[in-house]
């Protein structure tokens, strides 16, 4: 649910299109975290990042965004800190984690510590399945996310 329970210690948001091959990486990673049933950790699966997620973000002290990433120089899972910045808002499809963090501060005076996990991806054909490389990277991402959220508890 968008309205988080009151005692959430960490929020994991996996986003992308689960019918476009490797674009499902964010979902698969978030589902992997969900399956661990970590206490006080909530997950959200979303097709895209929309402004209403700022409200969810404001309810957790720690958040992790996870998504597929097309970057030829990305050699493995990348973990990076996210800092607030104002987006262009040209499309409800293209908000970035930085935009939502900015909105969380502007609207809810919330400043969670936020990370983004970029999972290397290259195959985006119609279909529900990850490439071998991305599938392996999802397992790594799940482990990295677990580290972040368990440290938050």
């Amino acid at each position, binding site marked *: 649910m968008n309205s988080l329970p009151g005692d959430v210690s960490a929020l994991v948001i996996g986003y992308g299109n689960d019918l476009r091959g490797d674009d499902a990486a964010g979902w698969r990673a978030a589902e992997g975290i969900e399956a661990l049933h970590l206490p006080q950790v909530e997950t959200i*699966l979303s097709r895209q990042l*929309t*402004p209403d997620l700022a*409200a969810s973000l404001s309810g957790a002290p720690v958040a992790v965004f996870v998504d597929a990433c097309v970057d030829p120089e990305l050699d493995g899972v990348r973990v990076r800190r996210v800092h607030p910045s*104002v*987006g262009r808002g*040209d499309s*409800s499809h293209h908000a970035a984690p930085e935009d939502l963090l900015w909105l969380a501060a502007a*609207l809810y005076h919330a400043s969670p510590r936020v990370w983004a996990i970029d999972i290397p991806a290259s195959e985006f054909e119609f279909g529900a399945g990850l490439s071998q490389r991305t599938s392996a990277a999802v397992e790594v991402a799940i482990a990295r996310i677990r580290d972040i959220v368990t440290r938050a508890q």
Partner: protein
Amino acid sequence: MSRQIVIDPVSRIEGHAKITVHVDDAGDVQDAEFHVTEFRGFEKFCEGRPLMEMPSLTGRICGICPVSHLLASAKTADAILSVKIPPAAEKLRRLMNLGQIIQSHALSFFYLSGPDLILGFESDPAKRNVFGLADANPEIARRGIRLRQFGQEVIEALGGRRIHPAWAVPGGVRSPLDDSKRLDLLGRIPESLDTARLALTTFKRMLPAFEEEARAYGDFPSLYLGLAGPDGEWEHYGGAIRVVDSTGKVVASALDPADYRKYIGEAVEPHSYLKFPYYREMGYPDGIYRVGPLARINLCTKIGSPGADEELIEFRARFGTANSSFLYHYARLIEILAAVEKVQELLADPEIGSDRLRASAGINQLNGVGASEAPRGTLFHDYTVDENGLITKVNLIIATGQNNLAMNKTVAQIARHYVHGADVKEGALNRLEAGIRAFDPCLSCSTHAAGTMPLKVRIVGPSGLLRELERS
């Protein structure tokens, strides 16, 4: 020699499109076109799939309005099974559709069009977005987010997830509404009603400043088409097709959605992947009609919930049958209020807790049509199956597609009003986009026909046309 002004992509809409404005040497607009540049192909690649998969499959046409397709598809399958679904199942499907209307309309008003309306069409483009709105008026932004969340929570409470809930199925629905969730949702009603009323008050206060826009943004006569109840009351899930003209006169009523081909024709144009539906009796393009909030508000006799009916009376007193596409915004806000009031009513209905939720049957018809009102307008799904229940043919008439002629006309009207001479200001370009945004189109939904459109490919070099290829 003519000049083209191209806006590509159009911003703050769902999906991808471009606008081309043709101007002559004097800078006068000759014509304008709205091009849809997406191609999706669902009508083709669903062939061969089992009927039972169709609600889930077609729900994936769109990530913003999947519920609309889910419900229209389930209704189509109901028709092929020849079942009347249990009353509780219909009420739950209606509840989900109302949640969809709330979340979609809230997104349209607060995130997509709100920046223009509240910050101004000529305001700094760098800030004329949801972030600028949040900065300038955080309270409105917060309220808008909460209202959209409420609609999504209705959907999630029923279907288990906010997007692509695999819950409406042929014959009914998969699961009941948990009573604790029902009470949670009821608890959110007062705030949601308050926000809906705030949005209406805010818009009505701003409206006098938009007289020019109301005249220039698609103000032309057309038919209005949508579902309505037996006495013409506002409908969003059931009922029959009703058509009124630009004066409000009823052109047709109680039309069976299953007979849509008798009264809706579809044309194609080379400049767009979107089909051009029209009302057959009046031919193409004279049979131009609009669907969606403005159409539903124009064609209904009443809404059937107290606050929304009051607003409808005020709207009618002010505009009669409203023909300006700018007033889609106003109609959308009335519908949000209607939807929240009707959610409240359904959540208090004791039948909503029933566990009799599904009728079972085999394939009893080889063709079925299901129609429902998506937030953007009437949606038709038409499936033909074989004896084994495998899809052999699909036709989808999407809400946004039915507004295609009107969107083109709107773009041309705005262009003629705001584009003059060689110096085209940024505000004018934004207004062209804003004209499209008034319709709140979902272009991701609208582009599916495969191999049926005439295509013209023009290869143009610096010295002019090099080669022209055409597929008819």
